[in-house]
């Protein structure tokens, strides 16, 4: 398999999108998307861990035997997450106060593990780094989308508290879409996450179907 970076980017961001197509990493995608800002925070933290873990797996791929690859990968992700957690707490404390809540949850995400198994374990380091980053960004995209829809319908805002995550300069993206007393609580609660995620999966398939109809491409469903 030669590295086709365009394909890797396209697959990671859209075609094989972790949440919307592969249906992986749904636990954080459901739990952390009450607002678009939370989705963004969780997505970015996951992207960092995915990129570094994929790179590490690719570098060590010739030393890990097939039989013990799963425990080794879990060990790598867990170590990465813990190191990131401690380092951020010590030296990026302001960011940690906002993002710290999300970091331990990355260990419970099977998306990094899936990409290691499906991609990084067989590929050279650079394509693996690109793959990890792009799948992570695709994950971020999906989470921001789910979070945004839930936030607008659930509490009428978009990117509330973004300034806490990204700095005061981003105060401008904190929008109020609906009147202040607007709020459909179920969208903030877990059922809202399932509803929105399900509808977005449908929307993605419909977009893909429409696109493939034009280009007469084969099918929609793909495998990693």
């Amino acid at each position: 398999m030669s590295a086709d970076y365009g394909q890797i980017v396209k697959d990671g961001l859209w075609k094989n999108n972790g949440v919307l197509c592969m249906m992986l990493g749904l636990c954080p995608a459901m739990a952390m998307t009450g607002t678009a800002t939370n989705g963004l925070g969780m997505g970015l933290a996951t992207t960092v861990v995915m990129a570094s873990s994929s790179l590490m797996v690719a570098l060590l791929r010739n030393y890990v035997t097939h039989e013990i690859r799963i425990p080794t990968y879990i060990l790598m992700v867990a170590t990465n997450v813990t190191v990131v957690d401690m380092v951020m707490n010590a030296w990026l404390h302001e960011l940690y106060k906002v993002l710290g809540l999300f970091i331990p949850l990355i260990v419970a995400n099977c998306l990094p593990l899936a990409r290691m198994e499906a991609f990084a374990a067989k590929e050279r380091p650079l394509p693996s780094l690109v793959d990890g980053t792009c799948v992570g960004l695709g994950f971020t995209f999906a989470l921001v989308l789910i979070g945004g829809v839930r936030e607008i319908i659930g509490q009428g805002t978009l990117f509330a508290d973004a300034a806490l995550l990204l700095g005061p300069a981003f105060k401008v993206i904190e929008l109020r879409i609906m009147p202040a007393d607007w709020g459909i609580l179920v969208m903030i609660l877990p059922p809202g996450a399932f509803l929105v995620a399900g509808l977005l999966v449908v929307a993605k398939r419909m977009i893909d179907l429409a696109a493939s109809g034009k280009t007469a491409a084969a099918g929609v469903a793909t495998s990693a």
Partner: protein
Amino acid sequence: MSEIRPAWLHAAILGGFCTVFGTALALTDGATREPIRQRALEDKMASLAQVIPGTIHDNNPVSDSITLPGRDGTETVVYRAMMGNRATGFAYEVTAPGGYSGPIKLMLGIAPDGKLLGVRVISHKETPGLGDKIEVAKSDWITRFTGLGMGDPPAEKWAVRKDGGQFDQFSGATITPRAVIGGIRAGMEFFAANAPRMMETR
């Protein structure tokens, strides 16, 4: 796969990785422990400043602290605000059990007459976007306790509205505010039980 590798080889490789990653974790822990402790201390001083107004004391409460035994054998460090020789406020940490995901740590500031100078959440693991409205950065909910005390409102009103109390829960979360209010109550009871010892001047 051309041949079956012996089991000890896998064990050795896995053991090797465990050693390497374990060492990496230990090194990171060693390097970050002191800075993390420092950050936690800074956070504590910042939250202390929020619950004891700077205008009521001329000492440094962080350096003027006394340690009192709590109910369950734990120790509570009480930071004292002094104006001249007179105690004008006390601040201490209260751990509120029963949060949605684990205990919630609060910092309480209380005046000698038992009225709350302020309450802040130091650390919690509540659901982002839902239970985290107890943080002052996200919502002003926590500021409503300032100026209140045991008896004002009466003890039975120290609860969320759903439990017959006078404090609003916020939409989607009752457990979190219930735990916080319970913690504040426990903190005020602690003050009532220990007030004489807190007032003692050295």
